[in-house]
Structure formats: C-alpha cells, structure tokens
C-alpha cells in the first residue's frame, strides 16, 4: 500500500513553507556576502507577533535541519519565558534535540546576549533584533538612512556619540553599541551589552541577525573586523564588575545581572545561566578572551 506521508503532519517541517524558506535563504547568502548590510526580507507571519523574536525565528527555521541541536537564550537565560516558548515551538515543528549546554548546541538563537563561553566554527548564532537601524536615533526617515548607508556617511552617528560624551562625560550607549563591520557598514549588534561587543570581532562563528518587525536581516561572517565606534582620545569600554562579583560563585570575569532585593539591597549574579550552572558545578569552561577582558584581568579579578 502506498502510504500518504505528505499530509500526516499539519505543518511543513520547521513551520515555514518551502517557498518562503528559500526566499530567506537567498537573502541570507547575500547578507553574508555584504557583511553588516541590512537586507529586506518577507518576514512571514508566525504564531507569535512580530517583534517578539520572529526575526530570529525566521532565520532559525530557514537554516535548521533534523540533525541540529538547538539552544535558545533570552538575556543569557535558558529559562525565561521568551526562550522557553520559542524552544518548545522549534522543537515541536522540527523534532530537533534541544539543549541548555552551550558547547553541545549547533544552532543557538539569542535575545540580547552572546554566550559567555566561546562559540566554535561549527556553531551558528542567530540574534533577535528589535531595531536593526543604528542610524535611527540620529535620522528618523528610512529613505535617508538608506542613503546614508549607501554613501557610508556616518558623520551624524559620530556627532551623536560626541554629544553624548560632552553632556555626560562618557559615551552613554549601554546596550546595542554601534559597530563598524568590515570597515564599511555601521551596524546595530542588537541590544547586547558592551561586554559582548568585542566578541563579535574576528570570531570563529557565523553571526546572523533577524529583525522580524522591521523586516530586515543581516550577517557578520566569521573572521570579520567588527570595531565599536570610538574616538582617538575617548575609547570604547566594557562594563567593569571588579567591585561586584557574582553572589553565588564570587566570579567577576563575566557579564553580571543586577538583582534588587525587597529591602532595597542589591546583588549580582552571572547572566549566562548555563555558564553559571557550569561554574557552580565547577565544570571546565572556555570563555571568550579579548583585550578588554584581559585589561580587567590586569586588575586581578
């Protein structure tokens, strides 16, 4: 008997139909060929609203295969609501194995963090991006920002950083610090903390960015120059936790979350939940290293 396998599942593998997947795939190849350039794409409807991680989800579902091991984090945590729901969705639509372990995963989706452990050449990390346009804060019209990117005219961006320095004595960009990719495009790295920015530079991993609401995707290939915007005399700095330290492990050389207690007191804890677990269990970890972290280490953390 001929078995009907086509209609045994209600949904196509990885939810999105093949025609739309192919469109996203074609755009991804172009995005990789032009590092940092935002490519418009279809942003098909998903069972969650645009702006809740659909951009990341589109890319994940367009590249995922049956053999992939999937991990998803939200602000470093495997257990937050956004991560849990998207993980379950991807798992149900693909049957892929999911994991919390950063080293075991082959495909990682993330909201607003890069893992504390260094990612390898075999892994791909997909970012959920709320605002892909780094120039939006200095220019409100899309047709003008498009032209500014086309002409590599980033003067306004530098002026805004300068003004921030003059007003506040520091460049006040906390999350989503603008970066220059491959010496050509200024790119929003999605709202990752400054701590993570240097890890984009000359990395081993392919970084893919999806902004579902704004319908843009872009990419940073491995071994690509990614430099935070800075001035000769006013430099980019990462967060310094040398006066805090994780309250569970005492560890200082990681991005820490600040937790407020009911009595107004506060404490810090490692933001990357898998990294925290590994530190608690005294497992071996291989962290990113960069000159900014090394600098902090010079203070003997």
């Amino acid at each position, binding site marked *: 008997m001929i078995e009907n396998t086509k209609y045994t599942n209600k949904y196509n593998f990885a939810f999105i139909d093949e025609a739309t997947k192919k469109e996203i795939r074609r755009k991804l190849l172009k995005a990789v060929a032009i590092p940092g350039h935002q490519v418009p794409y279809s942003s098909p409807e998903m069972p969650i609203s645009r702006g809740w991680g659909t951009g990341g989800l589109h890319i994940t579902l367009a590249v995922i295969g049956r053999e992939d091991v999937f991990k998803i984090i939200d602000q470093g945590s495997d257990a937050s609501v956004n991560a849990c729901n998207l993980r379950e969705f991807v798992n149900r639509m693909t049957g892929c194995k999911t994991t919390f372990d950063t080293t075991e995963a082959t495909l990682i989706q993330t909201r607003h963090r890069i893992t504390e452990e260094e990612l390898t050449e075999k892994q791909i990390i997909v970012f959920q991006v709320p605002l892909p346009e780094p120039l939006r804060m200095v220019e409100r019209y899309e047709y003008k920002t498009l032209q500014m990117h086309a002409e590599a005219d980033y003067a306004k961006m530098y002026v805004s950083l300068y003004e921030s320095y003059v007003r506040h004595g520091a460049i006040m960009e906390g999350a989503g610090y603008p970066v220059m990719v491959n010496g050509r495009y200024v790119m929003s790295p999605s709202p990752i903390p400054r701590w993570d920015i240097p890890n984009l530079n000359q990395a081993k991993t392919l970084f893919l960015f999806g902004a579902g609401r704004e319908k843009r995707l872009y990419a940073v290939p*491995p071994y690509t120059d990614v430099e935070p915007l800075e001035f000769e005399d006013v430099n980019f700095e990462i967060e310094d936790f040398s006066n805090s330290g994780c309250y569970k492990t005492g560890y200082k050389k990681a991005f820490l979350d600040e937790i407020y207690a009911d009595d107004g007191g506060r404490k810090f804890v490692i933001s990357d939940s898998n990294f925290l677990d590994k530190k608690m269990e005294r497992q071996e970890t291989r962290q990113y290293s960069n000159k900014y972290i090394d600098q902090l280490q010079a203070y003997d953390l």
Partner: protein
Amino acid sequence: MQPELHYNTVFDAQQHFRLLLDSMSRPGKINTFPSSNILPPAGLNQAAALTGFALLNADTNYHITVQNSTDIADYLLVNTAAQQVDIAVADYIFLPENHDGRGLHEARVGTPVYPEDSATLIAAAQVISAVAMTDSLKITMNGPGVNGEATVWVKGINPDLLNYLKEQNSEYPLGIDLIITDGQNNVLCLPRSNRFTYTQTN
C-alpha cells in the same frame, strides 16, 4: 521530462543550503555535497544542479550562458519552476567550464541602496582542490570569513572570469557573488567582500 525522484525538496534543500551558507561565510573552505542520484543533463554538473534546486523557485529566475541550453532549462523548470530570463535581469547565472566572462557585463550588480539586488554566478569547474595542482589557478583569498589567508587550486576556471569579477566588485558593496562547483560535488564560494589574487601554476 519528469521531476527528479531522488531529491527531497525539504531536507536535501536544507542540507545543501547549509553547505552553501558555510561556503559563502568561509571563502576558501571547500564543502562537498553528499552524493546524490539525480541525473542533470549534459552541461550542468550535479553540484550546480543541487545549488539550483536549493535556491531556485518560481519567485526567482536564472540565465544559462551555454549554447543550446534548452535541456538544462527544461530540467530546471520541471524541478524548480524557475524560468530562464535575459542575463540583464537574472538572479542566478549558470556558467560552463572555462567561461571567459564575455557578455556578463550586463549582469546586475545591485544599486548603492540595495547592493544585494545583484546576480549570483554559478560557475562550473573541472576540479576544486585544497592541495596544490599543476596546470590550475591558484587562488589566494583574504577578507571577511577567511582566517588570515586561504589558498585553493581550481582547474577549469578562466582567469578572465576572475578579472571580470574583480572589476565588477571594485565598487564594493556593488558586485557579484560567485559559486564555483566541480565534477566531484565540491563547492567553493567567492563573495564580493573577498579580496583575492590568483596565479597560474604550471
């Protein structure tokens, strides 16, 4: 003509796309498509056909530069539903071995605002190799995706095609991306962001 029975449009397409994505993000890395039982017509190697299957559908189009390309056009139409169009509007352009780049100046290079709105070349070669070969082109690459410098040896690619590519990509981000396929199912990518040099080996 019948569509290929030995091709899974969901899982094979995904697997092959992942290899293309890996190749495009790591120029100089040679990836190999798993062996397949598809039988493309003469003038189209298996890796090029699989690349076409992974990327083409009715929303996109292609151009074939081979003379008398109706067999290939029929084959791609039946399997992907993509139509052959004029070279000046084509998204994908299939090139035979040793193509000298003539006539490709009409191919789209994108616009300053939308540089991605450009053609991708899928060029056939005899052999792509990571070890030195005689009588071949030695291509040395650096740029995004390459850790320091990468070297590959390619047989069956005309130096004029690479000259053409350099010329088109000189106004980066405008430009053309190249996918090279060979008879052993290998695939190699040269995205426009890559800065390469080549020499002929004896």
